[in-house]
């Protein structure tokens, strides 16, 4: 637990803003002057740049590369990853130099390499630590359980930080279990920590049930969503959610016309909603209106390329081009150059 507190200890001396990054860079500048380049490289890479690199590798789906690169860091608890190891550079500073986000990434990567159990184990450890720290804070102790008295605003800030970290870990666990096709129940337990995301979470669980064919369970969850929306008053984003869910149920019942109607109604409230636009076009195809569907999708992409240059939309577009004609290769080429210009 001590290892997590390094950053926290440092941030208590400063405001939780980009200043903290500033400070670290100043520290590193000192290093450039006074210490070996090798040590500098290690510290520089470790703290932030390695994390950025790993996140980008993950975003690019280069999971094997990410795993190879994170492997030498072991379980992120080598002594030289702690501030105490560099007493001259960071005097008095304690704890781990590894950002929490990097620990999370390290925990998540195995699931993308067909080792979801390992990911779950690591995530579970993270969750346990978060819960323990939160318990200590709530008891009026410091994060590591020691009897230091903290200023009220610092306690609040710390509580908020660790709450958000706990939620983030739980999302990761729920996503991992989803990949393992185990079931959506973990998402349910996030609601108590993030009540403002209740509608999205319940809708998400409904969609997961639809994916496995259990339309009845899905409808139950969607009804919960409608009740929640009614209680909090009519926010347009909530009505959007309700309409979206209704459309998915229609789809599952082979009622593409109804689904299209729901998406269209949604677009009256939110005309620029990219998901509703894409999904409405997909429904049109299933209703036998290829030309209309293609026209709509093409129009959307040309109008707002930044928003619609998405893997899914492009895939739908190219599938429809292929279906439309033998000269689809021509059209795809014309389209591709346009896309390349923007990407």
């Amino acid at each position, binding site marked *: 637990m001590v290892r997590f507190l390094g950053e926290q200890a440092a941030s208590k001396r400063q405001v939780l*803003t980009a200043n903290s990054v500033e400070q670290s860079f100043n520290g590193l500048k000192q290093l450039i002057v006074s210490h070996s380049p090798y040590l500098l490289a290690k510290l520089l890479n470790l703290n*932030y740049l390695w994390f950025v690199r790993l996140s980008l590798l993950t975003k690019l789906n280069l999971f094997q590369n990410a795993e190879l690169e994170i492997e030498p860091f072991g379980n992120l608890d080598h002594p030289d990853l702690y501030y105490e190891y560099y007493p001259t550079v960071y005097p008095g500073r304690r704890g781990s130099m590894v950002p929490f986000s990097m620990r999370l990434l390290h925990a998540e990567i195995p699931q993308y390499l067909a080792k979801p159990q390992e990911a779950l184990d690591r995530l579970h450890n993270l969750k346990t630590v978060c819960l323990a720290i939160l318990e200590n804070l709530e008891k009026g102790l410091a994060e590591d359980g020691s009897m230091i008295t903290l200023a009220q605003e610092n306690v609040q800030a710390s509580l908020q930080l660790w709450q958000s970290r706990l939620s983030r870990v739980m999302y990761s666990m729920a996503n991992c279990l989803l990949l393992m096709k185990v079931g959506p129940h973990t998402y349910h337990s996030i609601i108590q920590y*993030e009540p403002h995301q209740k509608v999205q979470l319940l809708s998400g669980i409904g969609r997961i049930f639809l994916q496995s064919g259990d339309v009845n369970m899905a409808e139950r969850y969607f009804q919960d969503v409608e009740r929640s929306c009614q209680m909090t008053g009519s926010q347009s984003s909530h009505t959007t959610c309700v309409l979206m869910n209704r459309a998915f149920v229609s789809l599952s019942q082979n009622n593409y016309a109804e689904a299209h109607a729901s998406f269209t109604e949604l677009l009256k409230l939110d005309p620029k909603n990219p998901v509703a636009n894409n999904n409405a076009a997909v429904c049109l195809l299933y209703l036998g209106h290829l030309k209309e569907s293609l026209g709509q999708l093409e129009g959307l992409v040309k109008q707002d390329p930044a928003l619609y240059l998405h893997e899914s939309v492009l895939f739908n577009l190219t599938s429809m081009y292929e279906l439309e004609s033998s000269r689809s290769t021509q059209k795809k080429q014309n389209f591709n150059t346009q896309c390349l210009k923007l990407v």
Partner: protein
Amino acid sequence: MDVNQAKQEHLLALKVMRLTKPTLFTNLPVTCEDRDLPGDLFSQLMREDPSTIKGAETLMLGEMLTLPQNFGNIFLGETFSSYISVHNDSNQVVKDILVKADLQTSSQRLNLSASNSAVAELKPECCIDDVIHHEVKEIGTHILVCAVSYTTQYGEKLYFRKFFKFQTDEVFLEAQIQNITTSPMFMEKVSLEPSMMYNVTELNTVTHGDQGESTFGKMSYLQPMDTRQYLYCLKPKPEYAEKAGVIKGVTVIGKLDIVWKTNLGERGRLQTSQLQRMAPGYGDIRLSLETIPDTVNLEEPFDITCKITNCSERTMDLVLEMCNTRSVHWCGVSGRQLGKLSPAAFLSLPLTLLSSVQGLQSISGLRLTDTFLKRTYEYDDIAQVCVVCPFTSNEC
């Protein structure tokens, strides 16, 4: 998967796309905290991504629909849906277009088109669309035959067809029996009494020498609300199979006879009505195995005997080709003539092969060509054989 018949350039193009349900796009959330180097950048990217859930961007399963990627599998009982599009690729107006979609199975030909009337005219760049549905009730090969006939602006009548083949998977007969009473019961007998066309093998007993033990083991009682599954394997009787080649169409399999006993021998009995089933189709030529060993040694040739039956109504002149796979190597001459085979006749074919890979291997790679029609039938995954190493584990 589609085979083009005519080599001539047509003014119209026919395209088919299987319509399985669309899938929901999943996101891969990569996040960081404000204090980390990227700061708010990752969160911003996720918020701007059109496929993330607004307000809960770390939720993996989004709401964006993606069209089906590939053909996928199809199972008995599922519905095959497909989009059929005829597009005018030319720059002239085309008249009197008739599009027909038929499904050809081994036993029947079904018309699937929604409309059977011709479309008067189709302008350039326009298309005729249709979505067809069919519930798959037979196993074996299904061929979607799409035929398009049209007249050019010069009055020339043209016609072309496209074939799309797909296969369904096999299924055994399973009977599920549930005890809906409030007391335990002893299942004395659950048997499938076959009709005169079939032999039935029940697969609910494990034989140990002379004695047979139920697959349910020592659990001889069925508790209230418990369910048991009984499995049966159907084989057509030789006299019925040989005469017609194969049993085609709807047949009567037999009826289930269930006898049970409860407290102090209180007896109960149920018989179902005659169960009907669409018999499996085998296509023009049926290739089955007469003899094959269970276990063979690695890299040692072994013999199998195949039986080739002509299930069609015309005489065939067959040529056999053997293709090696990664694990199976055929011994003998490939490309030899097997001679003429009249309708409903069969021949026995001894073959030798060996396997170079250990484990459960699938025998594949036989190709029979009918030289009369110049049609080739492919036979893969005919059977499985267990390949073991004959030496001790150290040497292998």
